[in-house]
């Protein structure tokens, strides 16, 4: 296009980036918060903050099985997620037998509180950290598949943006340590470069592996057309524990010896603990049990699993010893995306990458607006509605999403714990806040608008520990004293984020720049000469 490779790639980088940047910010933002998915969920159910977990895994399994036995003896599926370092409570779920006209029964879940505390604790209903996790590829208010295609398109644009960004950035090494402060669009370009280049391995990895996590949706042609037997056969062959065994229709006489299965599994797979158990048709003669475990230090997660029938014969077992090289590669790459394996120091390095990703996308959007604003100012042109729209989207997305997340956390504490729609309304609150910030940003897209939203965000963030103190029986100091670092950490991070937001607000107010003079008076698009 129009001459050189450099120019065409710049065009693609600029306009592709602009098209996808707000959605990509949502994805990066939600994805980064997903590194703290379980911690956010824990914080959002304060009823569980005082619960002492059952430390012994064997005891926990025994207790949770007896709970399931009493609650859902005829269920077609039991599901158990055992407690680990990041999840203090054992989680269980079961599917109710389908009602007439229903394909599948309702899924009911709960937590195990240990023997003495079994009754009298009702955890409030909330989507918790899963909200951000789902948001970053399923979006909201639409079908998951549609959303995944949209996010996939954005991820492809991100990948193209990264590669074109590398080829058009001719001074990668020369500009490696360069940041020129207070120079308008130049400063934003430096920020864009720094946040992209310094975490480039992370950005490439997270974008590519993000596409890989859903590659059976995005690029299913090879497996559908080439693999003998198609996709279903592929999954059966790839993981032999996926096979389903039909119920016999006869009730079992004695309970399943799940503890024995676990012992066998640990010995055969050489793992120290079990992470997950799922039981199909527990009451039936043909019950099957799948046990999952993770070897400590292994990067690819769920590397080990075995499917047992009710007699304890292994029907199928994960083939980690027989993996083909591409399987190992794909498993490792996807595990790098989810980072479930990462211990805390490494997890924080991933978080840093995610934050730089947010800054990269945000600074790209702001840079576009600044460039256009400076160009139109120089040419004595009116600023135009399109620039205003971009500026408003920038403000609403970059500053609005943290604010909306805080609203989400606030609603979690302020809505009555037994209010039926609370789970939904926490999320509605998030999007209503986002919409309100967008409307405000259309009216005031300049520096003052940014300052106002940052100030609001900072204020709400700093008041969050206070809110927790007033609405629950716990507070930040108690978490610190009890060594509940996940809960204390969440509030400390929010506090730190609040301080940064306030600094941002001050920064926006201190230097009235070009954009501010332009946008201080809504409706007036006449140029003010500098």
């Amino acid at each position, binding site marked *: 296009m129009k001459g050189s490779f450099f120019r065409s790639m710049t065009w693609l980088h600029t306009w592709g980036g602009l098209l996808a940047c707000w959605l990509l910010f949502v994805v990066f933002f939600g994805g980064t918060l997903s590194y703290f998915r379980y911690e956010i969920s824990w914080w959002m159910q304060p009823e569980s903050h005082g619960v002492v977990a059952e430390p012994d895994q064997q005891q926990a399994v025994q207790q949770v099985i007896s709970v399931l036995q009493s609650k859902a003896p005829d269920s077609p599926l039991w599901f158990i997620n055992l407690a680990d370092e990041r999840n203090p409570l054992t989680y269980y779920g079961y599917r109710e037998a389908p009602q007439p006209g229903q394909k599948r029964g309702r899924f009911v879940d709960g937590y195990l509180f240990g023997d003495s505390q079994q009754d009298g604790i009702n955890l409030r209903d909330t989507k918790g950290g899963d909200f951000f996790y789902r948001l970053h590829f399923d979006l909201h208010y639409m079908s998951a598949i549609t959303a995944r295609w949209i996010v996939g398109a954005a991820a492809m644009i991100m990948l193209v943006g990264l590669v074109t960004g590398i080829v058009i950035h001719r001074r990668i090494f020369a500009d*490696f340590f360069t940041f020129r402060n207070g120079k308008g669009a130049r400063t934003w370009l430096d920020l864009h470069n720094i946040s992209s280049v*310094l975490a480039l391995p*992370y950005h490439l990895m997270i974008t590519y592996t993000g596409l890989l996590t859903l590659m059976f949706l995005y690029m299913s042609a090879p497996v559908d057309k080439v693999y003998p037997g198609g996709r279903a056969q592929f999954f059966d062959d790839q993981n032999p524990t996926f096979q389903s065994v039909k119920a016999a229709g006869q009730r079992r006489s004695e309970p399943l010896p799940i503890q024995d299965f676990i012992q066998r599994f640990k010995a055969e797979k050489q793992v120290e603990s079990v992470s997950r158990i799922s039981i199909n048709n527990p009451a039936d003669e043909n019950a099957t049990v799948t046990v999952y475990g993770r070897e400590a230090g292994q990067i690819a997660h769920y590397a080990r699993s075995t499917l047992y029938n009710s007699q304890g014969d292994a029907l199928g077992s994960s083939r980690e010893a027989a993996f083909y090289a591409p399987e190992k590669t794909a498993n490792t790459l996807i595990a790098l995306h989810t980072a479930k394996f990462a211990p805390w120091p490494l997890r924080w390095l991933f978080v*840093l990458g995610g934050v730089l990703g947010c800054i990269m996308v945000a600074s790209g959007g702001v840079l576009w607006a600044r460039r256009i604003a400076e160009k139109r100012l120089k040419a004595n042109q009116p600023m135009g509605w399109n620039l205003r729209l971009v500026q408003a989207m920038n403000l609403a997305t970059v500053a609005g999403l943290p604010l909306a997340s805080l609203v989400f956390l606030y609603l979690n504490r302020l809505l009555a714990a037994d209010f039926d729609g609370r789970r939904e309304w926490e999320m509605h609150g998030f999007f209503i806040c986002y919409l309100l910030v967008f409307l405000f940003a259309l009216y005031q897209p300049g520096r003052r608008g940014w300052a106002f939203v940052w100030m609001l965000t900072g204020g709400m963030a700093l008041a969050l520990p206070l809110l927790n103190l007033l609405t629950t029986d716990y507070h930040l100091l108690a978490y610190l004293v009890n060594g509940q670092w996940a809960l204390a950490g969440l509030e400390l991070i929010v506090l730190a984020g609040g301080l940064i937001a306030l600094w941002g607000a001050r920064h926006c107010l201190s230097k009235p720049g070009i954009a501010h003079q332009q946008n201080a008076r809504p409706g007036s698009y006449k140029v003010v000469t500098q």
Partner: protein
Amino acid sequence: MSYLMVFSLLCLSMSYFATGQFSHFRAVHGVKLTGTRRQRQLLSAWGILFGGLLAACLVKGFAHGSLIWIGLLTPAALFVLLILQQRSTWLQRIRVVALLLCLFSLIALLYAG
């Protein structure tokens, strides 16, 4: 401890990469960067960079070691950038501190087994 060791090594490496550039060398040392000096800076930078990778892999194994190494590149470069931006004359002192921290963490690692 291994994180501290790799991080200080990478900071050291990044600082030499920075002083391998003309503008930053002048800001740190106050004199002009010459060709041979430039080569020496860059050589130490690359040497320490891959030394860091080797150390990380030796301590943590290849998979986790290389991950930690790549992950720590970002904060190390950010740190050096911050120093250059705010107090470029401190860079030489920072190098001494980084070297001491590296030795300290190495001893701690050896001592711990």
